[in-house]
């Protein structure tokens, strides 16, 4: 173990990139959510916050919100379990933040004789890691629901627990098909295996090879983020949800955790089903088109293009998730349970069987 300064620097850089990427995207999403919903509903959206008269399309609103929340009073309900009450939002945010760590944002970068995997943590079983972290986040919600000493919060916590198990079973079962097709639990390998083009033009992305799994995963993934149409744990119009008693930045952290989870789910969807950092026709040496044309590119430029492609795909995915969030009404609690256990779960099992049969038939891999 001889870690030079450069190695440490590179490792820190990888972690920093992922952290900043997730945090910034999560912070920006409060703005995106307002603006996108406004545009979808023929409105303008938040545009009042200004510094010296500069409004820049309401981009200062997240900042204003943060300042407001930080300066608000911290409120503890009487009879609340103070330790758990303060711990809950941090648990929520922490697991949402670290979940992104093993999602690759670019191919291995070869610079100056070094190989830098563009991924914060190179786990051999990366999918399981993301999945595990995603499922741990619900403890923050359940702790919040329990410790608030409020029946509505408790109901929210219970619903979150039930929803999480439902979603998790479906997510796990729908991932299996992808793992079978690409033959690895390593996120980097899965993305790499999505590179080849089927018949010279169709990228071998997960959405092509596993269309059913894509729909199932996306549905279950939205359920895992507890956002509309699966926001029964919050349900503003019936129970206020697990964070009724929260105020100030602690409340903000719960909202933040939701946004971060959305980023994680879109990152996961992109990596598993939309080819991750893959760009069609882009090889490590540059573009190679089937009609013979080639554009040679240096390694760094290729990596930058890949990172750019990944970021773009994630942003588009977030846009799509927002579109769903602002289109569909909320499911009732029993409807969501029915959808999860009688719809998603059996279908994903069927998908596994189908995938296995197809792999046997065509002897893929």
């Amino acid at each position, binding site marked *: 173990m001889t870690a030079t300064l450069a190695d440490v620097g590179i490792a820190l850089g990888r972690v920093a990139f992922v952290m900043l990427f997730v945090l910034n995207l999560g912070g920006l999403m409060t703005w995106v959510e307002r603006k996108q919903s406004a*545009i979808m509903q*023929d*409105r*303008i959206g938040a545009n009042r916050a200004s510094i010296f008269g500069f409004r820049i399309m309401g981009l200062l609103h997240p900042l204003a919100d943060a300042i407001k929340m930080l300066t608000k009073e911290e409120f503890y309900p009487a009879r609340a379990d103070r330790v758990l009450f303060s711990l809950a939002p941090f648990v929520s945010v922490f697991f949402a933040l670290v979940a992104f760590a093993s999602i690759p944002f670019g191919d291995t970068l070869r610079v100056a004789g070094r190989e830098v995997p563009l991924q914060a943590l190179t786990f051999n079983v990366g999918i399981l890691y993301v999945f595990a972290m995603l499922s741990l986040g619900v403890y923050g919600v359940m702790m919040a629901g329990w410790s608030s000493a409020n029946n509505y919060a408790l109901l929210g916590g219970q619903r979150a627990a039930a929803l999480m198990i439902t979603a998790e079973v479906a997510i796990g079962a729908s991932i299996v098909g992808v793992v079978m097709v690409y033959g690895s639990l390593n996120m980097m390998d899965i993305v790499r295996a999505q590179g080849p083009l089927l018949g010279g033009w169709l990228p071998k992305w997960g959405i092509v090879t596993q269309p059913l799994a894509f*729909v199932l995963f996306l549905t279950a993934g939205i359920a895992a983020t507890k956002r509309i149409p699966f926001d029964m744990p919050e349900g503003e119009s019936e129970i206020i949800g697990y964070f009724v008693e929260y105020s100030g930045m602690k409340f903000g952290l719960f909202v933040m955790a939701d946004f971060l989870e959305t980023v994680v789910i879109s990152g996961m969807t992109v990596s598993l089903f939309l080819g991750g950092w893959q760009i069609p026709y882009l090889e490590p040496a540059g573009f190679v088109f089937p009609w013979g044309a080639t554009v040679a590119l240096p390694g760094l430029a290729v990596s930058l293009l890949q990172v750019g492609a990944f970021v773009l795909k994630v942003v588009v995915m977030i846009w799509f998730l927002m579109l769903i969030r*602002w*289109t*569909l009404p909320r499911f009732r609690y029993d409807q969501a349970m029915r959808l999860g256990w009688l719809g998603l779960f059996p279908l994903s099992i069927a998908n596994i069987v189908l995938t296995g049969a197809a792999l046997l038939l065509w002897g893929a891999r």
Partner: protein
Amino acid sequence: MKLVQRVYLREVFSGLGLTARHFFRNMGRHVAHALGRKDARGAVTVQYPEERRPYSPRLRSLHRLVRREDGSPRCVACMMCETVCPARCIYIVAAEHPNPEIEKVCQEFTIDLGKCVFCGYCVEACPEDAIRMDTGILEFSSYSREGMIYTKEMLLALEPAGLDGRPGSPIPIPPDRTP
């Protein structure tokens, strides 16, 4: 229910199509607006303080006292408005008018807008057409109750709104609301 309805996926997609269509249409208009096509509007909402809808001529807004040619109030302190006011927010102190043709004049005419319910009965009741609610001013507010009390002088200074409903005179800002 039919299977197609129960699967729900088709309805999801048609809903997504609708919202996505709105998104792209409005986004295009916003971009066109930013690029200089000022007639392209991506939203149907009115940006209130900068843009205002024209008010109806029948709108009941802040009161004003109508003046005679010499600038004195038309009010003859008959107390009709004070009597009819359901909120009892009008306070009149009467005085002799120098002109013997006219019976009285109001020495003080105070409206506590913190109590006013804007029913318009005072305007209906006035036999002299001395009080009207046609200033078009809606934005009066104060940090204190005293700031909501409007005196005779303030009410006399107000002008009727223009044809488009725009206020004809500046909003009387109470002293405690100075920024």
